[in-house]
């Protein structure tokens, strides 16, 4: 498939490798949620959806430690708040569905997202204005992601302006291309050690007389 829109041309922080990694995190989390689904124990699509959503949020929040370009600005603790992450400084939310069927509650940027959008624009004034970014997760009949897209939405028209199909990491054939960056040096904390025979050592001024003399 030829992709007509390459997000990193408009959003420098959204590099191909980062999108592949985020796509992979989502694919893994939701795939495992689907594996654990137990319709025989009276679980419904609702419970599958909740499990998939919570696991996706959790997996992204944990991955923040591994990828310095990834952060979660809202919803890291779970619960009924908008989950907003930033990829390379660009705020992104995710929803389940087709790229051109954006649920109403995902059509406008949320408050934490607006803050991040303004921050990103203050740093790079060349970023597109009036746009927000979503990851659309299209599931198959079993609840596993069949395709994951990055969708750029026009805030006013609430319609997608650009769509990028995020390839699977393993099939992309470019893993070697972006070998992991060198990890930061590990430097253990510094702590003072006592001199064992400290009691026998005298200071200069003690030699010359103490205060109580």
């Amino acid at each position, binding site marked *: 498939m030829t992709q007509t829109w390459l997000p*990193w041309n408009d*959003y*420098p*922080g959204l*590099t191909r490798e980062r999108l592949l990694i985020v796509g992979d995190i989502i694919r893994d989390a939701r795939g495992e949620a689907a594996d654990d689904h137990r319709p025989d124990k009276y679980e419904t699509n609702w419970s599958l959806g909740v499990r998939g959503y919570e696991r996706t949020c959790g997996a992204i929040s944990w991955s923040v430690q591994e990828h*310095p*370009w990834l952060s979660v600005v809202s919803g890291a603790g779970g619960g009924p708040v908008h989950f907003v992450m930033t990829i*390379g*400084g*660009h705020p992104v939310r995710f929803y389940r569905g087709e790229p051109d069927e954006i649920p109403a509650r995902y059509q406008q940027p949320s408050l934490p997202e607006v803050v991040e959008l303004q*921050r*990103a624009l*203050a*740093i*790079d004034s*060349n970023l597109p204005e009036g746009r927000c970014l979503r990851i659309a997760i299209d599931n198959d009949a079993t609840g596993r992601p069949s395709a994951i897209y990055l969708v750029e939405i026009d805030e006013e028209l609430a319609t997608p302006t650009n769509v990028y199909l995020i390839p699977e990491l393993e099939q992309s054939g470019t893993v070697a291309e*972006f070998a992991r*960056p*060198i*990890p*930061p*040096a590990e*430097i*253990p*904390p*510094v*702590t*003072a*050690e*006592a*001199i064992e025979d*400290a*009691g026998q*050592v*005298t*200071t*200069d*001024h003690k030699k*010359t*007389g103490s*205060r109580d003399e």
Partner: protein
Amino acid sequence: MSDREFVGARLQLARSFNQVTLTKLAETVSVSFGLLGHYENGLRKQPADDLVAALARALKVEPRFFFEPLPDVWQEAECSFRRRAATPEGVKKRARAHGTLIGLVVRELANHVRFPEYRIPSIEARSLDEIEQAAETCRLNWELGFGPIPHVGRVAERNGVILVQRLRHADKIDAFSRRGPFSVVVLNTARTSTSRWIFDIAHELGHFVLHDGLATGSKETEEQANYFAAAFLLSPKAFAREFRSRQFSWTLVFDLKRRWFVSASAIIRRAYNLGLLDPILYRRCYQHMSVQGWLKSEPYEPEFAGPEWLPSAFQLAAKRFNLTAAALCDRLYLTPEMFSDVTGLPVATDRPAITKPRIVKR
């Protein structure tokens, strides 16, 4: 106190630290300017007890402070002042006095607490290539690899440099260091940019490595220390690979800042020095940073791990040897206020809290 000799250098030390002029001090303690000058220079020996008490009160020390030996005065030639060219003499004097007082505290601690061994290599390097090589040698010696250095303060402390984050009332100095019996780097707390502190520490390490036994302060030595700091913090190959991995943008610069713990301006400068940015783009970047106000205050400042060794030494001395801040104050003849000003540590006094008198109605 008549059995002991008045030490004029200590009067000068306390006066410089408190930034009091000779004239002002003479006025405060009601003696002539000339007489005080004589006591400082040792031309007159024993001031009267009441004058000593007045001087002590004015300079926030105990009277006995003036009668102790002063073993290790920080000399101008031993110290490196960041932004030294623009530093007024009075500010430098005050900073040196602060250093000398820190030295007294550390000397006292050194009787009980073992110092990390001084392991900073002295490397003769003048050209940019040689400095680049020196920075790489340090990374290898200290087993840091070639990735980002998250705690450069720890690196300094682990290799025998004491870090003090307490330089006050001196906005004309970013940091200063001294190599001597105790090698110390003092950071300016008036500055709030953590990426700048990180660079300041690396800059002072540069002086230790490159200018052992040499006078610093010239434009040349400052530029060499700056180049060392950039080379040390942003290892050329790894940094260049990451810088080139994406098209240039401010998002890339701030991504790199978050990862490498170095200011955006240092990243831009380093990229220019390594030939990753052409001169036109470099100038435009600086213009953009200036317009955005980033040359004074940048977004996405990294977390800064402050000094660890000195607080841990104080803690250990208090716990193990009962050498609390109050006990150190007593031994050094400093008032708690002065001790706090020197070390940044609060001193718990045994005095009961003063409460308002209550009027009891009958």
